[in-house]
């Protein structure tokens, strides 16, 4: 059995997440991916903003930076640009990344800066008790959408791709083994990489939306996720109401810190390394 202890700050456990929450599943997948890629703990910086998912860095034994709401990518950009040799991982949530941090999200993608972002999408503001987020499905309920959400919601992967990300993938908490592979691929991609993870918040979202248990929500993920390969053989009608999982987009593009290095070399042709 995989031993997580090497990567966890065990003295900081138990974690603050609610029973049935999907965040721990993602945390474990991140650890397995890092272990499989044999990244040195000293070389990894994990940056987060504010929210349930953003508490992840507190539990892992890396260089960890828990910043202000929505700003993780801004801080992470400073870390990566200042010391490009570091691996930079950002963990964020749907509200943190696409509401208050939406501007940083699209611009990190546009720069294609070598940062891997794991975005925990639970369709709700969990930490503050269940307010509607930019991914709360239209028609579902939140404490600030008591009569049903009238807002349309973001397709985060489409947003990242349109903004310029060079790697875009989606997984779920239910398909945990697939997550390891998606996160590994994301980290290996030299550029801005997004892994969106659809996961359950049984307390702040599920209870308001006719999911009696966390299991019901996991079952929903299982029934609504369609892999990219399977989707290729399905009709539009069959895909109605489903979401795609797997690597949705990958394209090599110039990476920001590498471009900056090239510029330095161009400006200092005679300097020695």
């Amino acid at each position: 059995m995989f031993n997580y202890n090497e990567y966890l700050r065990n003295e900081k456990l138990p974690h603050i997440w609610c029973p049935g929450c999907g965040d721990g599943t993602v945390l474990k997948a991140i650890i397995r991916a890092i272990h499989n890629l044999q990244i040195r703990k000293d070389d990894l910086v994990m940056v987060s903003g504010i929210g349930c998912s953003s508490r992840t860095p507190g539990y892992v034994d890396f260089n960890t930076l828990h910043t202000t709401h929505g700003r993780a990518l801004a801080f992470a950009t400073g870390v990566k640009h200042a010391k490009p040799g570091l691996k930079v991982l950002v963990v964020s949530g749907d509200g943190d990344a696409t509401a208050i941090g939406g501007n940083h999200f699209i611009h990190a993608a546009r720069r294609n800066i070598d940062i891997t972002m794991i975005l925990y999408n639970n369709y709700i503001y969990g930490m503050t008790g269940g307010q509607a987020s930019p991914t709360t499905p239209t028609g579902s309920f939140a404490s600030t959408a008591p009569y049903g959400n009238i807002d349309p919601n973001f397709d985060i992967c489409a947003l990242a791709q349109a903004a310029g990300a060079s790697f875009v993938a989606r997984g779920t908490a239910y398909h945990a083994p697939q997550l390891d592979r998606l996160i590994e691929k994301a980290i290996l991609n030299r550029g801005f990489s997004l892994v969106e993870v659809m996961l359950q918040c049984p307390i702040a979202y599920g209870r308001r939306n006719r999911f009696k248990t966390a299991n019901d929500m996991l079952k929903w993920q299982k029934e609504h996720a369609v892999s990219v390969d399977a989707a290729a053989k399905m009709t539009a009608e069959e895909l109605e109401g489903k979401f795609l999982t797997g690597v949705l987009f990958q394209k090599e593009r110039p990476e920001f810190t590498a471009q900056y290095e090239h510029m330095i070399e161009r400006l200092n042709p005679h300097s020695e390394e």
Partner: protein
Amino acid sequence: MEPKKNALFVQGNHACFLGAVRAGCQFFAGYPITPSTEIAELCASEFPKMGGRFIQMEDEIAAMGAVIGASLTGLKSMTATSGPGFSLKQENIGFAIMAEVPCVIVDVQRGGPSTGLPTQSSQSDVLQARWGTHGDHEIIALAPSTIPEIYTATIRCFNLAERYRTPVILLLDEIVGHMREVLVEPPADSIEIWNRTRPTCSPAEYLPYRHTESGIPEMADFGSGYRYHVTGLCHDETGFPTNDPKKIDRHVRRLISKIGRHRDEIIEYSTRAIEDADVVLVSYGSSARSAKRALDDARAAGLKVGLFKPMTIWPFPEEALRLLANRVRNFIVCETNMGQMKLEVERIVGGKAAVHLVNTLNGEPITPQSIVDRIREVM
């Protein structure tokens, strides 16, 4: 007189850039905003030639975040902005205070509120510099008046940021930012450069927020083998969030006292002709230039006038001014705002002397004549 070979004729924003380079700044993140943009432009053009790093971020908030991230890797980092951008940066300035991340924020002040007067001068961010971010905190802010002063003050901002592990604000204004004067860069060996104290203990023993004797914990670079946690939440010596009232109290008190107990080292001010002065002008930044001229004119007319010019406006040179207030009956604060420093002077003087204000609010500098007129009124 022989012209000096190494004399430069530069604007204040350029002197700020040169000072930053001299201090060892290697990282700039910013966002275009008048009247500070020249600093970003110089960093964009010169940093890559010197191995430094520049980035234009998507907004002011992001620029402040990137500066903090870069500083955590060990690079001396800065940003430059003006009032509207300074407002946006306050959230992350608070983070830098809480997480004790050294950095320098230049605010080239313009008229406000809001978009205000983008191309004209003001000193109306004095209290924003002091209390712009939420929560109890101390802050260090410097307000130079001349181009050579901007150069040395910028170096000093970095030194103070590094020594006290705190953001430091360089408060310029449009007038000193854009005016040109001669700058002679002093020889490198005549300038003292302070660097943050890095840990010498083993990573296993390292406490990133240790209560040291000086009140300032050692700071490890990200990626140097000291893995630790940085958060804007109240935290204990280990850096991890805590709800323990005793630990929180101790932490917040240390954040405040680490500045307060080193006031003597931080505070810098100058005086002119105060020995026999009946009236003392209190001024800083571009307004101090008008005050100096007014002093000379008033002295030429036989009026006993002095000048008290704080370079460090936060923390304010409180003791020195209080001593002066034992003797002087009238203070005239000269500043281009509604009396933001006057409030502080009144608090310190505590009713022992009258405190008057000469100001402008329209982007124009204070004329020396208006100060002389006021001197005659109060005498």
